[in-house]
């Protein structure tokens, strides 16, 4: 990396030793770019040109380039964004590589990729040496300015990254806006909602930045105020209809409010903005399927699957959704073919498990009851032996299969367990209720869900109640039992960490409790990054352990 102060004049940038890769499907454009680079002082032997995505990937595997100029629209095969995603995912380009996406015109797709797969910059053709030179300088200066911050973020040390942002905000006028935004993102990621809110209010007093309004909406969502979040997101989109992040959050908000039709409309607008997103097409298909719109579901799932063919970000759930849609259209044969494709394309135990559950349900629906029952029996045995890890999605599929094949008891026990693990997820509760209603257990089902929820609440809060009565040891025991029963319930884990910390606070440090609290907190952060209480408890614990080491040294 070369160090250039932000005010460097263009003559300071020496490109002679830098290597460039040009990716463009037009022969003429490749020539034009090579000419421009030579005029910028790049040596001819340091300029490599390729015509498509596959050639680009093999060049990137052979050599670390300083700069990549990649056309977004590469004709058939991978597009520029997919090349970038593959290069980043497989670490073919390092953090110092500059990736510039070139386009014929400004498309929404150009500014809608996921953050970790964003290029450093976009350039609209035609370009000339002055434009390229100025842009490279600017990007190198920015990379330098953010190097330490990004390093801390890479190590997930967000508190350090926030401090580094603050330090830089004191003097760096050029990057002020970007620093403010990064800092707010970091505060949100750590769950420091109050600090984030304060910052965002200050920023919004100056101007109605779309990203800042969206940040405020995120805070409202974290606090469970989805109605207010919805209003704010709709306001943001009135000002700036193409702000994709607001569309995505609006979809989430509608889902949390149980408004599927609203979620579908919001997602349709997001997809219009980014038609090449594997995940959004998959999500669109899933909501369409829930709404019973098989035609739209089919179209969206197929699009997601076909986009995934050229992409490292291909999505297994798109295949599952397509298989279900085929079955709903009584096209069982294709449904099973799609599941076969899924198994070929993904080498992952959990994905295969889910696919088998879905296959069982499809076999049942097309009359192969024996085969369906066989699969169901295997699942219930795995569950009895506790040899199976089920997340929300997989629990639903397995419960659906067991219910369909007549094993109500096991189906209900799976749903109850997952409700207890996840009592505050509205989307899961809706899906679970649907399965119970489909099985003709309407009232009984709702009763079951409510009871499971209540039991979970008692388990979650029992220990805290004991701690407030100063029964610290019992509190820890109660929370440990709760953790064993509900190992992925975030609130149980947080409360266990909390009662451990309270014990240390009241009774003095105890090494094994410190370790247990730290381990529990780190599980929370893996399961659900950015929980507000995670930060609070972690900070108290840090304060206590620092005090302890001070004591030791004295």
């Amino acid at each position: 990396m070369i160090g250039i102060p932000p005010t460097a004049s263009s003559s300071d940038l020496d490109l002679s030793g830098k290597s460039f890769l040009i990716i463009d499907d037009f022969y003429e454009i490749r020539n034009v770019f090579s000419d421009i680079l030579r005029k910028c002082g790049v040596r001819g032997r340091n300029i490599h040109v390729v015509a498509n995505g596959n050639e680009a990937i093999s060049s990137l595997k052979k050599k670390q380039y300083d700069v990549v100029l990649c056309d977004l629209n590469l004709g058939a095969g991978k597009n520029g964004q997919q090349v970038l995603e593959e290069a980043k995912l497989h670490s073919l380009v390092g953090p110092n590589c500059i990736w510039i996406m070139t386009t014929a015109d400004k498309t929404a797709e150009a500014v809608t990729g996921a953050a970790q797969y964003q290029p450093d910059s976009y350039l609209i053709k035609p370009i000339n040496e002055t434009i390229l030179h100025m842009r490279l300088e600017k990007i190198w200066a920015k990379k330098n300015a953010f190097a330490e911050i990004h390093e801390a973020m890479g190590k997930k040390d967000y508190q350090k990254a926030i401090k580094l942002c603050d330090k830089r905000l004191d003097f760096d006028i050029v990057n002020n806006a970007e620093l403010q935004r990064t800092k707010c993102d970091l505060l949100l990621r750590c769950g420091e909602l109050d600090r984030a809110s304060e910052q965002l209010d200050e920023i919004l007093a100056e101007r109605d930045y779309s990203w800042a309004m969206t940040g405020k909406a995120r805070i409202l969502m974290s606090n469970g105020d989805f109605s207010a979040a919805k209003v704010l997101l709709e306001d943001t989109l009135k000002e700036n209809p193409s702000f994709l992040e607001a569309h995505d959050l609006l979809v989430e908000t509608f889902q949390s409010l149980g408004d599927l039709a609203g979620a579908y409309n919001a997602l349709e607008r997001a997809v219009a903005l980014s038609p090449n997103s594997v995940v959004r097409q998959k999500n669109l298909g899933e909501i369409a399927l829930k709404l019973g719109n098989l035609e739209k579901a089919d179209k969206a799932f197929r699009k997601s699957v076909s986009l995934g063919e050229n992409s490292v970000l291909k999505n297994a759930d798109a295949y599952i959704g397509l298989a279900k849609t085929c079955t709903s259209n009584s096209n069982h044969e294709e449904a099973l073919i799609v599941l076969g494709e899924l198994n070929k394309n993904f080498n992952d135990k959990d994905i295969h498990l889910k696919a088998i559950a879905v296959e069982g349900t499809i076999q049942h629906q097309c009359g192969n009851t024996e085969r369906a029952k066989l699969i169901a029996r295997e699942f219930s045995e795995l569950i009895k032996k506790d040899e199976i890890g089920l997340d929300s999605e997989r629990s639903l599929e397995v419960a659906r299969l067991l219910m369909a094949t007549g094993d109500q008891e096991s189906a209900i026990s799976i749903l109850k367990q997952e409700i207890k693990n996840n009592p505050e997820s509205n989307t899961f509760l809706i899906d679970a209720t649907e399965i119970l209603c489909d099985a003709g257990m309407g009232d009984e089902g709702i009763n079951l869900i409510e009871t499971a929820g209540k039991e979970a609440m008692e388990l979650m809060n029992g220990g805290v109640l004991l701690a407030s009565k100063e029964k610290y040891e019992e509190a820890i025991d109660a929370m440990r039992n709760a953790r064993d029963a509900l190992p992925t319930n975030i609130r149980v884990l947080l409360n266990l960490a909390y009662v451990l910390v309270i014990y240390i606070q009241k009774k003095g440090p105890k090494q094994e409790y410190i370790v247990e609290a730290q381990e529990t907190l780190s599980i929370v952060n893996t399961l659900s990054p950015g929980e507000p209480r995670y930060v609070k408890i972690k900070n108290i614990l840090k304060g206590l352990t620092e005090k302890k080491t001070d004591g030791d040294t004295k």
Partner: protein
Amino acid sequence: MKVAKSDIPPIPDIEIFLVSSVHDMKNSVAILISRLEKTLISADKDNFPEYDGFVQMNHEAKRINDKLMQLLTLYKMGQKVYPFDPQYVSIDEFFQTIASQNMDLLASQGIKLEIQTDPKLSGYFDEVLIYGVIANALNNASRHTLSHIYLSAKKNNGVLELCVEDNGKGFPEAILQESVDAIRNVDFQSGNTGLGLYFSALVARLHRKHGCSGEIKLENGGHLGGGCFTLSLP
């Protein structure tokens, strides 16, 4: 013997053809411009009799590029998919970009492009859109000026003002009137589509701050006594 009817089947979606063709044309024009510029820059003016002709071609190619960009942008805005993306932009750098694409060309036409700004000045806007507006204004000015174009920027009560002035005869009265409401004055019947002006007015209006929108203004007079185009951004 029956003769098959030669009915033209309904065209599925002409809009898609139009948009993808415009996109395609932009690619071609980009190559055209780059090639012309390469020729112009490496040419020895005195021993190249076609020089002025090439300059003219380059100028026309750029106009086509700018118009295609305006059309695509308007289409996307209509579909609510234009990625409006305002950022803080250094005006000095912004003007350098504009100069790099226009200075040589103007010089070859005997037109002096003078640029005036404070190096510390910055603005908050969508760079691609505002570039489109200023390029359009420069193009107009270069057709009507006698010899001199003045491009300047300043902040006035927190509002950024970008001005393109020339020493020609100034705007005719009809255009001055029209510009008062450029967005409503598009008249396809009379052939006065005023794409450039419409685009500029729309882009100005997209840039808002606390309820205030940007605007454009056409006047005569200014520093050089000719036409004076001002874009104000809150």
